[in-house]
């Protein structure tokens, strides 16, 4: 079973904090891979807030091609956080080239586009580069989005953290999702490694998604650029979060109503019963049927956790509102390692109806039950 750990903090922190927590939970995962999502970046990227950052792994030729590709379209690199490890990689990790995060000043044409168009163009660019890389093997792109860095690698999280020197200041971030282990159901593939990302939304999951094929087919038929790839059966969780919030305009507290709607009995006395039962019907194809825990981060920096009632061991949320730091962890020991001196009585394990949300201000854990009246939908 994968181990998940997410941190959200008012001040940027080192991603190694999350890696350390994964390491504490090591018993439960095989150390076969690690994925990191960083947003709310500190350091040099903080000044470059609106500029899309391209993150991925490139060979020298690949990097050259990326520069060419971007230059052809009039985008200029503003700042690059490059890392080319010189040491011998840890056991099981291939030697790949440069791990880069390149912040771009986008072309004037791009900036003239309306927001939705800009977003679409970024997704398209990422997909084009990814496709090119899949052919040549020179380029691997995980994200292209403002204030977002993604790092993925095969191997033990701790060893990778040290190998890639993830402690660097340029990688410090306010919102961090980290997952240990490669995917299980399919062949080893970096794209299949959690967390997944689309247009500012990132989620990671542990558990099982037995409805993968129907959901994948459904999402693909929605005509949304970026609903593709699907190297892992839980990539769809991210896209459902995207679909629900961006395409349907639902609040994230409604996410759970989409993936695991209430049954008739639970819904019976609900003030928004009509809306919810309609939503359940029309989103029937997006119901995730399987034990799972989802942790995700939204474009505004809020973080959430939701889990299915079939999940045997639920994740936990806890933190220190005074210091402004909260963590979402699949195991309590991870939480203890990252925020040892928190008020443990305030820890919260969201149960089958709950979604735990921590806003970007990191003040409190918002506990939403599916039985609550719906929050205002955007």
């Amino acid at each position, binding site marked *: 079973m994968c181990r998940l750990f997410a941190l959200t903090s008012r001040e940027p922190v080192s991603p190694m904090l999350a890696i350390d927590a994964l390491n504490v939970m090591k018993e439960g995962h095989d150390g076969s891979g690690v994925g990191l999502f960083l947003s709310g970046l500190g350091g040099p990227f903080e000044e470059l807030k609106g500029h899309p950052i391209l993150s991925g792994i490139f060979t020298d030729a690949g990097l050259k091609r990326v520069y060419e590709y971007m230059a052809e379209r009039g985008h200029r690199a503003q700042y690059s956080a490059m890392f080319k490890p010189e040491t011998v990689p840890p056991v099981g990790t291939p030697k790949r080239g440069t791990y880069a995060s390149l912040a771009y000043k986008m072309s004037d044409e791009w900036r003239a586009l309306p927001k939705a168009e800009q977003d679409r163009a970024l997704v398209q660019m990422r997909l084009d580069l990814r496709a090119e890389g899949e052919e040549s093997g020179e380029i691997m792109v995980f994200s292209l989005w403002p204030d977002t860095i993604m790092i993925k690698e095969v191997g033990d999280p701790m060893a990778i953290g040290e190998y890639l020197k993830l402690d660097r200041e340029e990688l410090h971030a306010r919102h961090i999702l980290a997952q240990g282990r490669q995917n299980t159901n399919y062949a080893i593939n970096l794209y299949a490694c959690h967390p997944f990302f689309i247009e500012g939304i990132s989620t990671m999951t542990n558990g099982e998604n037995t409805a993968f094929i129907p959901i994948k087919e*459904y999402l693909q038929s929605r005509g949304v650029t970026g609903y593709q790839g699907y190297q892992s059966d839980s990539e769809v969780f991210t896209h459902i979060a995207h679909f629900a919030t961006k395409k349907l305009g639902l609040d994230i507290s409604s996410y759970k109503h989409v993936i695991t709607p209430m049954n008739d009995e639970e819904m019976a006395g609900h003030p928004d019963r009509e809306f919810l039962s309609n939503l359940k019907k*029309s989103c029937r*194809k997006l119901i995730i049927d399987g034990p799972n825990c989802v942790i995700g981060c939204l474009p505004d920096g809020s973080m959430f956790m939701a889990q299915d009632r079939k999940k045997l061991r639920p994740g936990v949320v806890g933190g220190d509102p005074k210091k402004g730091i909260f963590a979402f962890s699949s195991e309590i020991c991870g939480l203890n390692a990252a925020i040892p001196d928190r008020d443990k009585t305030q820890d919260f394990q969201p149960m089958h109806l709950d979604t735990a949300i921590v806003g970007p201000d990191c003040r409190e854990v918002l506990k939403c039950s599916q039985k609550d009246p719906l929050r205002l939908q955007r």
Partner: protein
Amino acid sequence: MLAERPITPSTLSRKDLPWQIKWDINTCTKCGRCTSVCPVNAIELGVFRKRDIKAPMGLSAKPTTEFSTFYGIRQRTDPAYACIGCAMCNMVCPNNAIEPQRQDDSTTLQFQNNRGGQSRTRGGRRNNSESLLDQIKFIRISMLTDPALDAGRHEFEIRTLLGRVLSPENEIKCFHENGWKPPVREIYPLVIGGMSFGALSPNMWEGLQMGVAYLNEEMNMPVRMCTGEGGCPPRLLRSRFIKYVILQIASGYFGWDEIIHAIPEMKEDPCAIEIKYGQGAKPGDGGLLMWHKVNNLIAAIRGVPKGVSLPSPPTHQTKYSIEEAVAKMIQSMSMAWGFRVPVYPKISASSTSLAVLNNLVRNPYAAGLAIDGEDGGTGAAYNVSMNHMGHPIASNLRDCYKALCVAGAQNEIPLIAGGGIGKHGNLAANAAALIMLGASMVQIGKYVMQAGAGCLGSEKDRCNVCNIGVCPKGITSQDPRIYRRLDPEKVAERVVDFYLSFDTELRKVFAPLGRSTSLPIGMSDALGISDKDVADRLDIKYVI
């Protein structure tokens, strides 16, 4: 055979009959029950004459000849009275002195079945014992990251939607704007398919209705039953039970008058309206209610004279083309109930199913599509239609589901699959396979007769005399002397029994796949088959 009996080209010996009667002189009590119960008069009481030669010991005494007569059972060899293997004779025989036996090498009757220039018509099933659905395996078992669910203890929600479901975008828009929304019913995914009042005996029909009502009201299983063409008894139309019924209207419009007259007095809306364009077992042909069964009651409900054959004609003047029919009929049927009732067409699976579906996708009132594969069949039709016409359901359904996926409408138009489900008794496995191939629900007809009323028919052309009003079990007869054999209460009990066991079996399939709260519609990665061509065609896994 008498010495002077003429031997013509169509004369058959007993050996030529596929079903032969084995009668045991030693155990027979000569009660005569078998001959009285035989639905086709295949056996009759016979007087046999026997010559005995007695040769005494010694050289002088001459042998003598003695004649005796005895009584017994004689099987007729006239093709019109050929034994159908129903074994009713055995069922009534106190000593098991008589039983039919199948002779697979006796094929001559097949060539003699058509007499007087008339093609053979029969009721029942397609005489083919293969079943593709039975070969499909469920291969995606949750073992890896989490243990499988507990079929006995987890909460399951085995429900499906019948009706046009709006896309999430439109649903939310419609909700905010308070717009008209197509009606949607949440029902149990196993529907009793259209078997008409007329084809079935009143007792059978009543039994089914009672079973369905019990399942709904006592077992909390929203099971629905389709009437088939031929109308619905007026009292049922005006009762609260009509909500468990899908009313069918078809090319013949039989019984429709009755329904229209009842509309103003209906207490409840029916569950849905099914417009029948074709049945899988007799595509492009429709049912054939032969005159034997058109008695006073049936004639009255259908609004026709008594004692005339009633073929459901394939088309009617009002159905000019499928496009027009789909548009017009769906709209007018919806209108009849103030757009509160889902209306959907039922077609035979055919090479043009996709075209029909394409029409429906663009019709905002279309509530679904029922596709009926070649394998079904409960009613009467021509032999040739039943055995040789039609398209198998699995690939047809799969094509339709994939077309919906391309159009992004896979949750919007439910596909209802029928034809050959549970043909060999594997109802839950077959239904689950079809659901995973893309059906939102499945419908059964024959299985209900077999399980609910003990129909004797088989894929080996056993019984299958449903069309001539002599159904030995009273399932498809309109003769009160025969149908009173069937106790409606018992039918209802059996219906409830098999639904409950179906439900258990379905959980046994779904739980290991990790599904408990939504039907695994289109979960094709769970399916595997050991035939490469089939796997490629259905886009499922090839496993050996």
